Structure formats: structure tokens, C-alpha cells
């Protein structure tokens, strides 16, 4: 085990250097994906008909294997970090758009009406009401995007050793040092778990209004269920006793 952190010199990095490189190659694309996903999601919320085609396109993009994506991009961007980061940004985008759309759509209508009544314009309403309420859904999407991005960087090893910690896998194979592969897997998993925990921390900081024992499950349509309290009851009173039973 004393050779566990003994990184072969052909990688030209220390263990910590590889960790830094890995984080950069994984997190910058997620950031880029988030920056691109916010306006796209907003367009999908504004124009409902846009959502289905956007979902279709993103699903196809997500189905392209990362390795094939990397190899095809070599023709344009060479065997560089950028070739690894572009597909990761696209995958992040694909995960984030539905998460953000679901989150923004889950904002109750009366909340929006209250914001408008208080004199908020569309921009301030978006920034100060819709986005903060959508934070849990957005963070849930970010967690999936970040973790899978950290995991996928390793595949970059196949295109000219651009895989940061994944490069250890190649060396483990060629130098017959399995501990390097263990190091790669364990370190990558640890990075992913730490990043995930950091995002949960961010969520708790950004949403002090949420109950402390909030559910920590993955993202999904089930996560953001609007409370059917007030509007359901109002409707029930108009519709008669039968609907009142339904509302319960």
C-alpha cells in the first residue's frame, strides 16, 4: 500500500495534481451546462410547445455514448481537455433542463400572482421568486449532473490520456499495478461523494424555508409535488360535496 500514491511519472502530475485536473475537467462542464440550461428551460416554461421537441433532442444527445462523442470531437478540437469537456457539458445540459423546467413549473400560481400584485416585473419575479423556489429541483439535477460528470471524465483516458484520474487505469494495466486502478476508482468515487455532499450543503444554505428533514432522494417528477391544499378546497366548495371528498 505504500505505493498507493506513487503516481508513475508519465502522467506528469502528482496525485493531488490529478485530483485538481479531474475536478476542473468535471465541474467546468457542469457550470457551462447550467449557464446554458437556465435560458433554455425558461424558454420551455414560457412556450410550452417547445418542451417536447427539446426533450426529444436532449434524449437523443444523452443516448450518444461518451466515448463515441469524444472520438468524433477529436476531429474538431484535437486530443485536448476541451474534447472531454464538451460532451460532459452536453450531458449536464440534458439532465438540468428537465430538472429546472419541473422546478420552475412547480411554483404555485398564487405565488406568482402575489409576486405580480406586489409589483414585481417578469425579470425580478423570475430571479426573486421562481428561481429560489426551484432551487431544490435544480440542485437535485445538479447533483446527478455533477456526479456523472466526475465519473465520465475517466473515459477521457482513451483519447490521449485526457482522463485525469482515469489515466491511472491505463498505467495500472501497462505497469501491472492494480493498486493504481483501485486508487483511481476510490478517489473518483470520493470526489463524487464530496461534490454531492457539497451540493446538499448549498441546498440547505439556499433554502432555509425547507423543513430540515427534507427528503434526500434523487431527482424525479415525484420530488416536487405541489400541495393541493387551498386551491383544491376552493374548487371543492364550488363543485359540491362529491369534489370535497376527492379533495381529501
Amino acid at each position: 500500500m505504500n505505493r498507493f500514491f506513487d503516481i508513475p511519472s508519465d502522467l506528469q502530475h502528482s496525485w493531488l495534481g490529478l485530483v485538481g485536473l479531474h475536478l476542473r475537467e468535471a465541474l467546468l462542464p457542469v457550470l457551462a451546462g447550467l449557464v446554458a440550461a437556465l435560458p433554455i428551460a425558461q424558454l420551455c416554461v414560457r412556450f410550452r410547445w417547445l418542451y417536447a421537441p427539446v426533450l426529444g433532442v436532449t434524449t437523443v444527445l444523452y443516448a450518444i455514448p461518451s466515448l463515441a462523442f469524444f472520438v468524433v470531437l477529436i476531429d474538431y478540437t484535437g486530443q485536448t481537455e476541451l474534447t472531454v469537456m464538451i460532451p460532459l457539458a452536453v450531458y449536464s445540459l440534458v439532465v438540468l433542463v428537465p430538472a429546472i423546467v419541473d422546478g420552475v413549473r412547480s411554483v404555485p400560481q398564487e405565488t406568482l400572482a402575489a409576486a405580480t400584485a406586489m409589483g414585481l416585473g417578469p425579470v425580478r419575479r423570475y430571479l426573486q421568486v421562481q428561481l429560489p423556489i426551484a432551487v431544490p429541483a435544480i440542485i437535485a439535477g445538479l447533483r446527478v449532473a455533477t456526479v456523472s460528470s466526475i465519473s465520465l471524465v475517466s473515459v477521457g483516458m482513451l483519447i490521449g490520456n485526457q482522463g485525469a484520474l482515469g489515466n491511472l487505469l491505463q498505467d495500472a494495466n501497462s505497469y501491472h499495478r492494480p493498486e493504481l486502478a483501485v486508487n483511481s476508482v476510490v478517489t473518483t468515487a470520493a470526489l463524487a461523494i464530496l461534490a454531492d455532499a457539497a451540493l446538499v450543503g448549498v441546498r440547505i444554505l439556499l433554502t432555509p424555508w425547507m423543513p430540515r428533514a427534507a427528503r434526500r432522494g434523487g431527482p424525479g417528477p415525484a420530488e416536487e409535488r405541489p400541495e393541493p391544499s387551498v386551491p383544491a378546497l376552493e374548487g371543492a366548495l364550488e363543485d359540491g360535496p362529491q369534489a370535497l371528498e376527492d379533495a381529501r
Partner: protein
Amino acid sequence: MNVLHFVNAFFSDGSHWHGYDGIPARLAEHIRYSLLALGLAAVVGLPVGLLTGHYGRGGNALALIATAGRALPSFGLLVLMFILLGFGMVPVMVPLVVLAVPPILVTTYEAMRSVDPSPVDAARGMGMGESRVLFQVELPVALPLILSGLRSAAIQIISTATIAAYVSLGGLGRYIVDGLYQLDYEKVVGGATLVAVLALVTLGVFWAAGRFAVSPGVRRGG
């Protein structure tokens, strides 16, 4: 245009349609790996998700397991298993199953938790036992979400099964890895296209399964 040209060249080359390295053979291998991995993951994920969701216990533990499963890098796991276990199916199945279990597990749990409690109470009131409540009330209502979990697991498996080629197994990844080392761009693009098409067909299959299996009362747009 460039890419389309390569796609066309790949599929119109007659030699790509025959033999052990032909498209039908590789496609069959890929589907076999994917089905096996999805089956194994479903055998692990579905019962656990259904039971924990039914009793509403262990959600946090599930979330932890799912996070750990997502955090393990598929490619690293594949190479590690290959180094430790040698050539074979097991080194490929381990990362694919680890990849597929979290979405199935979490979505199934969430689906069971999000079932409207009033029909469940009604079923209990009618004297249904736990297993009948689970299979005749909760499962049909939760089915659309459960299917969506299986669907995203299947898509991820299909796209990730390509890495099996790196450890000398077959599947559509063969084209991508071989093309990479032979500098044969056409092969890479062709292989990627096949994988994407397979994923789309899978989406169609799950859509059809949803039409077929989900009861009409549950299938309201949402």
C-alpha cells in the same frame, strides 16, 4: 454534413453487414449485454424499491446507496474488475449493474411514496392484505414512474455498454474502440449512430410497454 457522409459510408459498405464483426452480430451482442445488465439491476432494485416504498422506511439509506452507486465511475470499475478478474462477462456486468441500480431503486421508491394514500386506505378498508395492497393498488398506480426509472437505466446501460469493447468483449462499442485505434472515423461514427438508434428504439419499446401495461385510469397525461 461531414458526419452524415461517414454514416452513409459506414452503412452502405456491404462488408459491415456480415460475419462475426457484422452489424447484426454486434447489435445482438450489445442487446444481450444490455438486457442481462438491466435484468440483474431490476432483480436487485425493484423488490427493494417496492418494499421500502411500501413501508416508507429506509429512504435515507436508499439515497445513500444510490449516491454511492452513482459515484462509482463505470469505466474505472470496468478496468479494475478486468485487472482483478480477467477476461469475461463479470467485469462488464459489475459496472453496468452498479450504474443501473440507483435510478431503478430511487425512482421505484419515489413512485411508491407518491401513490395517493386514499385508494390505499380504501383498499385496506376493503380488507386487502399487505401483498394485495402492494400488487393490486400501489404497483399499478406507481407503474408509469417505475417504468421511467427502468427506462433511464436502460438508456444509460445501452450507452455505457460500449466500454465493454475496451476489455476485449463485443457489442457495438467494438466499432468505436476499433475505429479509435485504427483511425477509422467512419467506423466510430457508424457505431455511435447504431448505439443512438438502439437507445431510441428502447425509448419506443418503453413507450409501448407503458401504453400496454399502464391501466387507462392511471394514464392521465401527467
